């Protein structure tokens, strides 16, 4: 007889995450922060129990606040990593490596153009969770050196993609390769953990939405099918491969039509209407909201699974993004 009991580690983790979720800013409170008149008022409304570093600040600068929010977000991710063990820990470690990967991308972009990037322009990571020596990467004189320095890390695959970079002369190729390997590794580890179907579902949604956004934005930039092909993650969840191919061939204005009767029909329609009015910011919001909604639905149906933990991490990331958006736009408006 199949047992309904869950492993104790999973029960412990999900119970902790339910508790941790209560520390996140509620939608109504976030609305209050967003509706503040200025930066000072917005900061007053941010809960200091979670963002205590704000109290120490004498003057408010959005760049410093952004760093505080990012640090908190990364801490929350690593808390989950520390609260788990074995394959589940491996999975969350791999999932959290998205920030390390983002830093590697930032360095690749800067070195490619021969520009200087400072440490504060990277996402603050805890030293024990990264094997990458960012200072050495930033000091590299060219991309070949960067790729060489990354050879012994999880980003060793960049050595193979370097020829493609040399052929096309754009770092987008390397960035796409980083994304592909990130998701492939994540899905590979996900096969060994409990609730893998739910976890696969959430990651699958993320890949699908990311691919759709990539295709749409590159189509609107007027890029050819071959160039788009190189930049998508070749994993398909709810959107079938033939539709992705059709999307790459279709005109940007046929985006919604091509996805008609698919799982993402409503999303595509909403995106097309929004982007038609020229608002990519709103497009990004729809993208985040869609991913949140999909994960939220899974989490609501399965509150004591790793799906819920993943949903919590998505919320952590969204909270940091929302807070950054609020403080940055409040500061810009004050200028």
């Amino acid at each position, binding site marked *: 007889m199949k047992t309904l009991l869950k492993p104790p580690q999973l029960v412990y983790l999900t119970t902790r995450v339910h508790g941790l979720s209560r520390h996140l800013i509620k939608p109504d409170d976030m609305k209050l922060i967003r509706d503040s008149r200025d930066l000072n008022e917005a900061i007053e409304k941010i809960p200091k129990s979670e963002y205590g570093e704000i109290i120490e600040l004498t003057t408010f600068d*959005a*760049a410093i606040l*952004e*760093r505080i929010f*990012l640090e908190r977000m990364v801490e929350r991710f690593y808390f989950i990593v520390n609260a788990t063990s074995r394959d589940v820990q491996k999975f969350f470690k791999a999932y959290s490596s998205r920030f390390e990967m983002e830093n590697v*991308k*930032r360095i690749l*972009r*800067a070195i*490619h*153009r021969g*520009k200087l*990037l400072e440490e*504060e*322009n*990277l*996402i603050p990571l805890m030293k024990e969770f990264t094997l990458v020596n960012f200072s050495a990467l930033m000091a590299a004189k060219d991309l070949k050196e960067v790729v060489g320095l990354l050879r012994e890390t999880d980003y060793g695959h960049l050595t193979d993609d370097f020829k493609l970079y040399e052929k096309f002369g*754009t*770092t*987008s190729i390397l*960035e796409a390769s980083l994304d592909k390997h990130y998701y492939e590794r994540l899905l590979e580890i996900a096969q060994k953990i409990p609730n893998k179907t739910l976890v696969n579902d959430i990651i699958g949604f993320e890949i699908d939405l990311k691919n759709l*956004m990539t295709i*749409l*934005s590159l189509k*609107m*930039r007027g*890029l050819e099918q071959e160039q788009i092909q190189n930049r998508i993650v070749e994993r398909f969840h709810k959107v079938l491969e033939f539709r992705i191919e059709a999307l790459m061939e279709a005109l940007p204005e046929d985006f919604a039509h091509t996805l008609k009767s698919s799982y993402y029909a409503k999303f595509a329609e909403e995106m097309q209407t929004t982007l038609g009015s*020229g*608002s*990519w*910011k709103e*497009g*990004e919001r729809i993208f985040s909201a869609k991913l949140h909604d999909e994960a939220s639905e899974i989490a609501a149906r399965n509150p004591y699974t790793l799906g819920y933990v993943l949903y919590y991490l998505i919320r952590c990331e969204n909270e940091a*993004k929302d807070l*950054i*958006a*609020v403080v*940055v*736009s409040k500061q*810009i*408006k004050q200028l």
Partner: protein
Amino acid sequence: MAANRGILLRLKEQLEFMQKSLEILKMRRDQLVSEMSKLLDEIKKRKNIEKQLMDVYSKVEDAYSVLGYSGMVSAATSVDNLRVEVNTISVMGVVLTEFSIEQKPKLTNIPNAVAYDAATRLTSAIEELFKISKVETWIEAVSQELMTTNRKVNALEKALIPSLISSIAYVEGKLEEEELEEFFRAKRIRNILRRTKS
């Protein structure tokens, strides 16, 4: 002032030269005025550019709020620098500075759609800004030149030429007087000589 034929000749030559200069300066002034009115038509586009800049500003603000400061810095490092060529050209003797975009920044590496949208709009706004700033610099230079030309025309028309005309009149009068005096002197000498002979 010494009055002799040489001076009169020189004064007349000067007058002729000044009148020709005045004519040329007046023509130049008319040309500058027509150039200025063309430039003023161009500057009317400034309102549209200001509107365009406000739109760009809101898009850049969007990009900042989506990516944050560090994300925007990273997006900015993915774009190479805009290269501008600065030349000087001469229009009717007025030295003007001309800006032209030698190399547009390549935006294809920008990773995020919001930042890309802001960057494309910003690039085209900068192009327009270059055009309008060129027109503004030209207006400044042409108006400066117009003022100088006007002052020269006024100086020639109201001061130099009239004073030269009066000098010529004076010298001519003086010479006429001297001629008359000479004529009378000659006449008297002739009479004295006739009387001595008889």
